[in-house]
């Protein structure tokens, strides 16, 4: 297809958040969604298992069916979707430069919504030692190979990590006749909630807690991993390593753009209307932070669409940039990071996470005065939320650990 040079709304990323927003906005505006993959639908395209779709379609679906349904709904609403289009530059205007088979082109829009999702962090980012043979892949790659291509990259891998996605990796393996030989978790407890943590035991996969991978060995293909755990070092014979979780927003587009990034989330800085530091740009979904479910991202797409609609008709309050600061080193991030007038925005509450198992009390303060608090006994990757302040003022969120 020939890409238009101009549209009302340009959405970057055809996953749950982007498609949800596009579907709503298409009622009142011209909406173009671009995605760099060959097929629209985002990550659920290659999550060939349940549970998806309860919020959106009120039924239990597998990822690929859910992704197709989202795309169908968007197309029926009048959204134009262009795949195999890579955005290469974001500029004020908004002016977006893309490349496709037709080469470079520019798209002007009244508003741009960025919803480019997340990726898992790699073996390199985790500085895991050893050699660099083939067969060390993230869950995303495993799912793509299994569900999109009907392939089996290995037969008896180890799985590093115990986040929700790590259990999705087990399901993906079992689906393809791959038999994981161990699940390895550096912390003393599994990250995902019960009952997910019981799943490997149920499937007879040994779960090694308080254990780290010291080295991956093998020249051409993985042959073994050396792990260090409560009983000392041991070698596990294996032919692959699935490096799961520790998600990072896929926010590369923000590097080298005029838009501000938050080093804590790794995603863009947004206000409670979902606006970036340039208010003609909005962001939603897992790009905002690591990591939430597809359903949650979809809800954020719906919510940010309302803010965008208000923006198109000039009904959004001017962006005030009251900062939100975190105090307490166990707090890893907060979204939104800026507060404009706190009424009826895309974000009705703060989302927070901690970076370690922690007990204590979190409070939200304006001008040194606490307006909300919460007792917590939580771990990384668990949802925490606090209300927004009553007025647009700088907010301090303080964690006092016990």
């Amino acid at each position, binding site marked *: 297809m020939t890409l238009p040079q101009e549209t009302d709304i340009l959405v970057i990323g055809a996953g749950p958040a982007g498609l949800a927003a596009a579907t709503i906005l298409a009622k009142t505006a011209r909406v173009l969604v671009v995605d760099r993959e060959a097929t629209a639908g985002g990550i659920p395209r290659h999550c060939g298992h349940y549970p998806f779709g309860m919020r959106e379609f009120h039924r239990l679906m597998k990822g690929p069916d859910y992704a197709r349904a989202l795309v169908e709904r968007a197309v029926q609403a009048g959204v134009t979707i262009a795949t195999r289009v890579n955005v290469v530059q974001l500029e004020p205007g908004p002016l977006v430069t893309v*490349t496709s*088979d037709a080469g470079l082109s520019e798209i002007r829009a009244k508003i741009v919504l960025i919803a480019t999702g997340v990726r898992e962090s790699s073996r390199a*980012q985790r500085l895991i030692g050893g050699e660099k043979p083939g067969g060390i892949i*993230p869950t995303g790659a495993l799912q793509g190979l299994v569900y999109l291509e009907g392939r089996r990259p290995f037969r008896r891998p180890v799985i590093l990590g115990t986040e929700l996605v790590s259990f999705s990796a087990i399901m993906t393996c079992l689906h393809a006749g791959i038999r994981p030989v161990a699940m390895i978790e550096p912390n003393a407890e599994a990250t995902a909630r019960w009952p997910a943590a019981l799943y490997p035991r149920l499937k007879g996969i040994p779960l090694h807690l308080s254990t780290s991978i010291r080295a991956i060995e093998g020249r051409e293909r993985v042959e073994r991993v050396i792990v260090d755990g409560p009983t000392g070092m041991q070698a596990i014979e294996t032919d692959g390593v699935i490096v799961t979780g520790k998600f990072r927003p896929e926010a590369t587009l923000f590097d080298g753009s005029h838009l501000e990034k938050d080093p804590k989330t790794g995603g863009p800085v947004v206000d409670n209307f979902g606006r970036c530091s340039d208010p003609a740009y909005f962001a939603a979904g897992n790009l905002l932070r690591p990591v939430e479910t597809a359903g949650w991202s979809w809800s954020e797409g719906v919510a940010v669409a309302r803010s965008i609609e208000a923006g198109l008709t000039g009904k959004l309050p001017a962006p005030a940039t009251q900062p939100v600061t975190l105090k307490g080193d166990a707090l890893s991030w907060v979204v939104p990071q800026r507060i404009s007038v706190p009424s009826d925005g895309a974000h009705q509450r703060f989302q927070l996470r901690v970076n370690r198992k922690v007990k204590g009390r979190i409070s939200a303060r304006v001008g040194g005065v606490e307006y909300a608090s919460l007792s917590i006994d939580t771990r990384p990757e668990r949802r925490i939320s606090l209300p927004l302040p009553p007025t647009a003022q700088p907010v301090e969120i303080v964690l006092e650990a016990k």
Partner: protein
Amino acid sequence: MPNDDLPASGRFDVAIIGAGVVGCALARRFALAGAKVAVIEKAVDILDGASKGNSAILHTGFDAPVGSLEQACVAAGYQEYLEIHGRLGLPLIKSGALVIAWSEEEEALLPSLMEQAHQNGVTDVEPLGERAMRQLEPGLGNGARAAFRVPREYLIDPWSAPFAYLLQAVENGARIIRGAEVTGGERDSDGWTLQTTRGKVAARLVVNAAGLWGDLLDEKLIGGRDFHMKPRKGQFVVYDKPASKLASHILLPVPNKITKGVVVCRTAFGNLLVGPTAEDQDDREHALLVPETLEALKKRGEEILPALKDHQVTAIYAGLRPATEFKDYCIKAHDRSYITVGGIRSTGLSAALGIAQHVLKLAELQFNPPVDPVWPTVSNISEYFPRDWQREGHGGIVCHCEMATKREILAALDGPLPARSLAGLKRRTRVTMGRCQGFFCSAELAQLTDGHFDRPMAEKAQ
């Protein structure tokens, strides 16, 4: 399954053993001289040994030992790269280098290092006081005291360069035989008959460019060796592309007797690397990454450029330098039919073209050079020059982090020197080398590479 041609009957003028950067440059030099060349590589693809992990710098040789063969080869190789890179389509990033003193003792050594540069013919070095140094590199950490600038130290693409050398050799008649390990050889009246795991290769001259295996190959073929391999491991940490904004020059430390020390520099691909370490080991095959060492490299990187602490690591790698007990290269014509090119340590990438000139002279053979040699052009994959994704008809981008297009990938799987492993494809196109390490593109790559690799990326499930 792709196969290189099995050795044809008949005799080659030259058999080069090893398709690392040195072997590739040798093949080109002999082919352009008119020789009938065979290159024998034991791995399934080229650049699989020492040449797969280096710092990707084109050195002037300013700090090489004065009067050494290494210095002469680096200087000649540097010069030839400047002359040919444009015609082959190879990038040259004119970054310049700063040699930075981080202590009083190091500062005291700067004048003698500059004197050494002069003696090595690098006469445009300029001393920099702290202020001038910080004007050039405002991101430097507090400990930096003074420096001198070596304006003509440059960055290059460490894999496209040797690939282009070998490609030019092949386009001018050389034969590459991959997946063939030399298991023995016999002299005869007209040179050698080599036995390989893929058949016999006869040649008038054998050149041992076997890198990390050079001494053992000499033992096997000529029953003795002049040097012993002492592999020196170098670990590197590579940061994601935004970090490349933190430094413009190659940031070198004051070298000591053993190593050039930890370098911080951009790469041709728009990343920033920190490394290498220098760790002697006996193992020639395995270059292990060690988490504590990588952490220490990160820490050192953050001392040199404090802003690095806010940047993401995208890759880690370790290479083995084929060092020996001798400081200089070990290049020797044992007789008219056997030359050893050994001990080509960290400067191999810079020196390769110069080494090839030197070895051609040692060979004392006469050929008829092609009247109109072929000059192939390789596809640029350096971030600093126009890329395929900027032109139409690229078929879409497959690797989103490194912006590798379908057209580039299909081209690298085809042609006279096709990729035969994922590692080989990575070095030709950068696929999966970026921040996501295959999260997004593995499925499509598995499909595109079907039938091209010795071992498929992922088998088809039944």
